[in-house]
């Protein structure tokens, strides 16, 4: 599924990723934890193709397809989805319009028919209900004036609507209240399947109680410095990142 080989990337001449190697097979959920500034969001941006990041070495592929050679929208059409740590506001574009435009663009790119308006609305109503999102909110400018938690919920709603093949969740739990965390996690778990993979970036064990990872990795100073089973997250919560500081340096 997702294969990352010795990935190096920099921003404005500052090296951030210094040789990340990671494999997430189909059907698995991997968690990435690590101190602030380690490069977790950078990894998610490099994988999705945000401008301003220069890949200086290494490779990344999804189902054997070279991601780095594709435009961001082409990567999305291949099924790559990023739930942003800081979702953007899109003034004047209602959430429903935005998502329908995205869904149809992805379908066109894959040579599929566009979704008809009634089928789209039905799907949107279903998904909004399951995420306890007020349907009226979907008629407002996307994320404009939404609270931090509402924006995160909207990310998961978009994910549910687009049903991507590979999900990257960048601190989706931050800003969510206790109930919202549960609802959002259920939304994510509903997408777990033998064909899908997920990379879950988080600082807190709590999210991993709901979205149970198969593997946990520690990213520090631009490298994966430790990997283990779910117990690694518990150990990090108890001990912090101190012992990886030397490994990273």
């Amino acid at each position, binding site marked *: 599924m997702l294969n990352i080989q010795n990935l190096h990337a920099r921003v404005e001449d500052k090296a951030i990723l210094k040789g990340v190697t990671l494999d997430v097979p189909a059907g698995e959920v991997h968690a990435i934890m690590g101190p602030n500034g380690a490069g977790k969001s950078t990894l998610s941006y490099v994988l*999705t*193709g*945000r*401008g301003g990041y220069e890949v200086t070495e290494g490779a990344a592929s999804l189902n054997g397809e070279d991601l780095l050679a594709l*435009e*961001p*929208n082409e*990567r*999305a*059409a291949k099924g790559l*989805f*990023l739930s*942003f740590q800081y*979702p*953007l*506001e*899109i*003034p*004047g*574009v209602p959430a429903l319009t*935005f*998502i329908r*435009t*995205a*869904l149809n*663009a*992805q379908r066109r*790119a894959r040579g599929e028919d566009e979704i008809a308006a009634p089928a789209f609305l039905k799907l949107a109503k279903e998904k909004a209900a399951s995420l306890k999102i007020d349907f009226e909110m979907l008629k407002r*400018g996307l994320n404009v004036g939404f609270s931090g938690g509402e924006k995160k919920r909207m990310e998961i709603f*978009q994910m549910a609507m*687009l049903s991507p093949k590979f999900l990257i969740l960048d601190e989706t739990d931050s800003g969510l209240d206790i109930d919202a965390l549960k609802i959002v996690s259920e939304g994510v778990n509903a997408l777990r399947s033998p064909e899908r993979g997920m990379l879950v970036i988080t600082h807190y064990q709590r999210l991993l109680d709901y979205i149970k990872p198969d593997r946990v990795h520690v990213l520090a100073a631009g490298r994966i410095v430790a990997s283990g089973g779910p117990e690694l997250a518990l150990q990090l919560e108890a001990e912090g990142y101190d012992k990886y500081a030397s490994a990273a340096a």
Partner: protein
Amino acid sequence: MSLASALKTGDLTELPSRRDEDWRWTDLRGLIRTLPPLSPKFEGDIGVGPFAADETLTLVNGQGAIDLTLAAGETRVISMRLISATAATAHAGRVRITVGEGARLTLLESHEGLGEGYLSEIALDIHLASDAVVERIVLASDAPEAVSVVDAEVALSAGARFAQTLLTSGARRQRIETRVAHPGAHADLRLDGIYLLDGQRHADLTTQVTHAGVDGTTSQLTKGMVADQARGVFQGRIIVQPGADQTDARMGHHALILSDKAEVDAKPELLIFADDVSCAHGNTIGALDEQAIFYARQRGIPEMEARAMLTEAFVGEVVERIEHEPAREVARAWVAQRLGRSNI
């Protein structure tokens, strides 16, 4: 001094030039080296215009004149087609509109360039009697090489309401000017506009509102986008004369520049000689939010489509202020088509 007077006298020095303060960004003298022959009477097919209405008035190649009067209390929706049909010729046309007391007019005005490279000036006089209501929607679809001037002189009476929305894709040089004599006296004015310019197109939206009495309101919102080597000009002047107290006037102009070679020149001016007025203006010129574009692309929307979508949303605020529902639909479709989003 105007394009019309230059056409009448054949004297090029009659053309407005950049030495005239109010024309410094829309130089006609420097552009027009020789005056083309006057436009002939046109007998060919003019097709259908962009607006549907029960009544249609047509002026082709400036021939003849339109003189429209609404009796007191009348309500009419009129499509007015001002057509430049013959390439490389010049014409000036006149329109006079009188709207009686309490009458209501929806004026759906289209400037249609069927020929190439013409020179056209249309002068309009619009008079609103007390409590008259006019909504004027202007869709200017000039040919890319045309020179086009639309000059409207509007006079409001007490309690009248005039609302205007200009939609333009520009021309080689294009000036759409609106001057409003505002008596205060609970008359209400809205002057809006959208310009969407690409290639080497130019559009100049100039307005002047003179508040002469107490208790008048004016609200202006113009939004524009320039791409390629296009140039947008906005000049908005609001004059509040001595004694025109309690005037409430707001003016906004906001533009997006989508390329290095495109340009926007804006001059908002508030000249206030009265006390106790509430006047404000805002003027912003910027680019699209690149982070928002990446966000849209991450969701699968191709870059050009993302840019068009955000631009459409940007000018959408002006479209939504159009009151006549069918005209609002025409405006929406025009924006989508200009931005290459007609398939959505």
